[in-house]
């Protein structure tokens, strides 16, 4: 039993619709990715299995299509569009991320589809939404991260602003879209009404700016990017990412109970190893206020902490943090994550089989642990047209002869 296993969705478009469908599929929904006959262009996105560029070996495709079924369908053909409408009759949700107006131009916009299926929930995921001055803007991840306000705040001030080196923007839009679909489903469960949802990736990204937009409103100051530092609206900054013996760790000082205990424990640890000094020993963390504390306090304390961290490895510092309850985390990389004892104890990694490659790989597991209806990551991403027979012959009722004709005519 899964939370959403009575529902079914069609998912189409580019990389922007992948995560939405994946997470609904994680919750049990039957999500069918609809690709053009030669497969989605997304399948050309690396990295690849053993660096072999192949539309069935894209790790990007593997990662964000688990639990889905896959069919091919040519929407540019009239027969293809008719078949799509037949499928729409049988589903609850349509997820798409084409440019605004594309589905409508094909006669497959919400207005048309809801005449076929009045209870349909349709969600469109685009960089800026269906309307507005930017709706036809060409984008890429770095452009989205720029227009969403993230980049201005990230990186070192003496160099250009930065994005995260792995694309992020599609995923913010995807998880937002999935949560929006769940709201629409619940509304429909209670009232019988379907509806249309228009998701803007830019709006989702704006939230990553945290205090900076309100700070502009109230203080008319711009928070500047501060690299490995945490910058306050007041202008002061504290070190956030620190060098250690074999890498880096993250730690900031905090006001409040957890912060007080953490800072005291850190000072105690340094003192026990003879690495503190009188100034740091005498800091009253109970009255410390992270926002109003002057810069020279941070610089002074940071200088002692920085020396201490450099004498220890990531593992030593994190083990000490766990033992002493210091709010410190190592700056981990992919290897650290796959080896993490926390994730292993949580049974986070799921082994999925790829029979055509003769191997099993470790996939990220459930995004939440649900006691009554556990999420299961059961199945690897579909191959091109993997479920064509199931869907077209078994579910839509085409005979094998008709099915072959659909294939030969380029409809599927």
């Amino acid at each position, binding site marked *: 039993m899964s939370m959403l296993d009575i529902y079914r969705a069609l998912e189409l478009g580019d990389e922007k619709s992948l995560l939405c469908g994946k997470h609904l599929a994680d919750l049990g929904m039957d999500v069918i990715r609809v690709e053009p006959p030669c497969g989605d262009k997304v399948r050309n996105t690396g990295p690849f299995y053993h660096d072999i560029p192949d539309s069935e070996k894209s790790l990007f495709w593997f990662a964000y299509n688990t639990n889905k079924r896959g069919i091919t369908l040519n929407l540019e053909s009239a027969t293809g569009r008719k078949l799509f409408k037949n499928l729409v009759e049988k589903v609850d949700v349509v997820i798409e991320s084409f440019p605004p107006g594309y589905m409508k131009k094909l006669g497959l916009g919400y207005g048309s589809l809801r005449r076929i299926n009045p209870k349909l929930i349709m969600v469109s995921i685009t960089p800026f939404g269906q309307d507005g001055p930017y709706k036809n803007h060409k984008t890429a991840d770095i452009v989205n991260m720029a227009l969403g306000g993230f980049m201005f705040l990230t990186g070192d001030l003496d160099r250009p602003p930065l994005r995260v080196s792995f694309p*992020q923007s599609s995923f913010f839009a995807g998880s937002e879209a999935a949560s929006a679909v769940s709201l629409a489903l619940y509304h429909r469960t209670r009232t019988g009404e379907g509806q249309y949802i228009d998701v803007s990736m830019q709006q989702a990204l704006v939230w990553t700016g945290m205090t900076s937009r309100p700070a502009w409103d109230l203080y008319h100051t711009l928070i500047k990017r501060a690299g490995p530092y945490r910058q306050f609206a007041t202008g002061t900054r504290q070190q956030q990412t620190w060098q250690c013996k074999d890498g880096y760790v993250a730690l900031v000082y905090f006001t409040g109970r957890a912060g007080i205990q953490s800072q005291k424990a850190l000072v105690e640890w340094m003192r026990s190893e003879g690495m503190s000094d009188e100034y740091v020993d005498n800091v009253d963390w109970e009255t410390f206020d992270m926002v109003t504390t002057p810069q020279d306090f941070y610089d002074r304390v940071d200088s002692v902490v920085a020396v201490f961290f450099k004498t220890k490895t990531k593992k030593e510092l994190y083990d000490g943090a766990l033992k002493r309850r210091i709010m410190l985390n190592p700056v981990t990389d*992919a290897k650290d994550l796959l080896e993490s004892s926390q994730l292993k104890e949580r049974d986070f990694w799921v082994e999925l089989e790829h029979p055509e490659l003769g191997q099993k790989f470790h996939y990220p597991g459930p995004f939440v642990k649900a006691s009554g209806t556990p999420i299961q990551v059961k199945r690897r991403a579909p191959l091109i047209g993997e479920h064509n027979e199931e869907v077209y012959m078994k579910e839509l009722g085409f005979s094998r002869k008709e099915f072959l004709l659909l294939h030969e005519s380029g409809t599927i």
Partner: protein
Amino acid sequence: MVEKKRRTRKTENNALPLEGIKVLDFSWAITGPAITRGLADYGATVVKIESLKAPDVSRLSTPFLDRKPGVNRSAFFANYARNKLSATLNLSLPRGVELAKKLAAWSDVVVESFTPGNMKKWGLDYESLVKIKPDIIMLSTCSQGQTGPGARLPGYGFQLVALTGYAYITGWPDRIPAQPYGAYTDFIGPPYGVLSIVSALDYRHRTGKGQYLDLSQLEASLQPLGAVLLDYDINGRVMERQGNRDKSFVPHGAYPCQGEDRWVALAVTNDKEWKGLCRALGNPAWAGETRFTTFLERKKNEEELDILISRWTKGLSAEEAMAVLQKNGVPAGVVNNPHDLREDHQLNSRGHYWEFDHPVLGKHYCDAPASIFSKTSARPRRPFPSLGEHNDLVYKEFLGLSDEEISELVIEGVIEIT
């Protein structure tokens, strides 16, 4: 240019998906409150449980009205607490826990973000609450989940951005990682929280069954990194930070424009866009040189190319650069600063900024959710609550306590009044 607003947020009283759903909210800081904000925005009655002695750290976060700190003066808090109610409750007293249980009996959903073990210590964990309300849906969220060696280590997004791998892959290859701005993972988790709770509500509506949801922000934050993790598992490769480079695209980066700290980000993802870029730059002679004619050549000479493009962008404002590039079919965008965001035409055409008025903070603006629904869009219903503003509403009206009972609880310190 006249913008046709064909699909704007309804300002009339359209139905909301979570009307009538009651949420008991013990959460604090960012992730938990962002989840309950996602519920409040869509019509749920969210009762935020607060303490006078130890207010939510977000109430103490800048920016403040007139730069003066105060629990009802933070515009940051306002953004997360809009559409919610506030009641005070002292959980360190046995009668406080009793009262919390009465509130749980009244609720459909309970949300908390304490360090694992705290709710159990108070007798308010799922096992206890499910005895009071068998179909309760409870969500606990914290950095690493309820179990495991890291469970009891408190943390905020500032550290978690390191533990989740995002800090390592942000920054310049020749420098210490720059880490994404702020408590980045606090913005990845919340949609997963809303998705989990609302799906659980749907399931409960159909089956009568509630359940417990253990949302580890680490596990939610790893979902978008699937391809990076597979690259290590399958290829043994650890992804490194690359500045603004992308191995599949060139040119790709942020280029300086006129003015202080003004930049335009652009990416050329195919030959057609390369030709568009050349046109935008006025077809300079260097664009035709062999060292730039193919993708492979451009990749080899990327640094030079960046310098040449910068010479062009430096002569324009970021807005002009974006406009010319877009006109020629090149993905490009202004690196929006917070001021730009406030004025952004696209965001404003989406009705992104909700205006509120609050008796202490005064007029202020909050960010709307990212989705416009044709029937059940979120809307601003009430500004953030002052601390303890709704004690009467919650204890008298919702729970039906008498005036005498409430006075007693106030005297005992169970309900703190401001």
